[in-house]
């Protein structure tokens, strides 16, 4: 389950295609920043399950992703300010 796609011989383009197939199969949208987190079989399964939960609850994953991204950027800026 922890085997990475790279270990399975898939390159980044193959990875993108895999995500596409998963989106088709489960009728989901995987936000760009989530794709980065799906590098192994386990991560992909966890990622898809989380998205399916959001779908069931009517939560828009892109909105969630945008919030997470904004929070991430804010944290990075804080750390930068703290360092300087």
């Amino acid at each position, binding site marked *: 389950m922890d085997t990475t796609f790279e270990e399975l011989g898939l390159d980044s383009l193959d990875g993108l295609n895999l995500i*596409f197939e998963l989106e088709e199969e489960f009728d989901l949208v995987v936000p760009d920043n989530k794709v980065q987190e799906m590098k192994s079989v386990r991560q992909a399964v966890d990622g898809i399950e989380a998205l399916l939960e959001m779908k069931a609850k009517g939560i828009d994953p892109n909105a969630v992703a945008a919030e997470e991204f904004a929070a991430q950027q804010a944290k990075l800026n804080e750390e930068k300010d703290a360092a300087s």
Partner: protein
Amino acid sequence: MGVISPIGNDLDSFWSSLREGRPGIRTIEKVDTTHLRFHKAAEVRGFNPEEIFDDKLLFWLDPFSQYGVAAARQALADSGVELSDKFKDRTGVITGSCLGGKMTEDELYRKLYAEGIRRQPPVAIPKAMSNAVASQVSMEFGLTGATFTTSTACASANHAMGQAFWLIRQGTLDAAFTGASEAPICTGNLHAWETMRVVSADTCRPFSKDRSGMILGEGGAMFVFEELEAAKARGAKIYAEVVGFGMSADAHHLTMPASAGASKAMRLALEDANLAPEQIGYINAHGTATQANDSNECKAIRDTFGSHADKLAISSTKSMTGHSLGAAGAIEAAATILAIKNEILPPTANFKVPDPECDLDVIPNESRPQAVEAALSNSFAFGGLNAVLAFRRFDG
């Protein structure tokens, strides 16, 4: 060399069709043309990509790439060249294509706009980019020399091959896989061509007084160009020598040609080749069968060759292969080179009525056994871009 064309998917059948003056122009099968004013094209037939490419590779190949890569593989096998480390280091891939993966794009846009399908596989850009063939061939054969693609409408192929020739001549490369491919037969593109009113509803009759426009074609041709001494040293099978390349711009109009530009490009090709006009025995014309091109081209030939124009033979093999746009110059180079090697000049097919504005020897309908010392192959593109290649027979 290698070729995939509407008149044959290998050199032997391609040459056979040319020699017999057999056009590959038929009712279009790839697309429903009910709503178009024209219904014929020269389509590649009997080409089975599943048999040529494994699934994993085919996934990344638009038809224009399928034609280009298949032709490149033929050229590699035909050349007998060894892919040594040195060869791979000093060889590049220089291709022409004016549309790239237009069929892939057309399908993607159709799904998006007509069916609202926004989720698409991440394959369109690597498939559709015009340099896809150059990249695929370089990857497959491991070639790391100068590699790029030229896009100059109907002159794309000649510009690519001319650059390959010059890069070898100047010592940047020892060899190049060069040529072009095109697959324009998709709904959107055919519709775009219809609006220009230059495609014939009849057939392709270059130089005939009753010509009524061009016929679209598709396919690809690829060559191995090698520095001459190296080729001789390894005992290569040499079809002909590439000896000159001439380019010019009309600076005139987006679609109407100007003969001065065409004759300048031919003259420059002769100068680059160190050939006198009298040494040219055959010209493979651009010969699209539009009213404008054919008379313009004949005037340009007279201007360049003077009295010798009446002694040379010209023909348009587009009368058989159709106009494959970016691939045209490559398919025509194959025809020209085979004509020189086999000492038979291919005809202008479908010729019916002589036109006083095209009063040159156009080799009507039947090929002609004739040895020539040297030949030109013309490409005169929309936007006034002219590129001419000069080939000379190689007698070993």
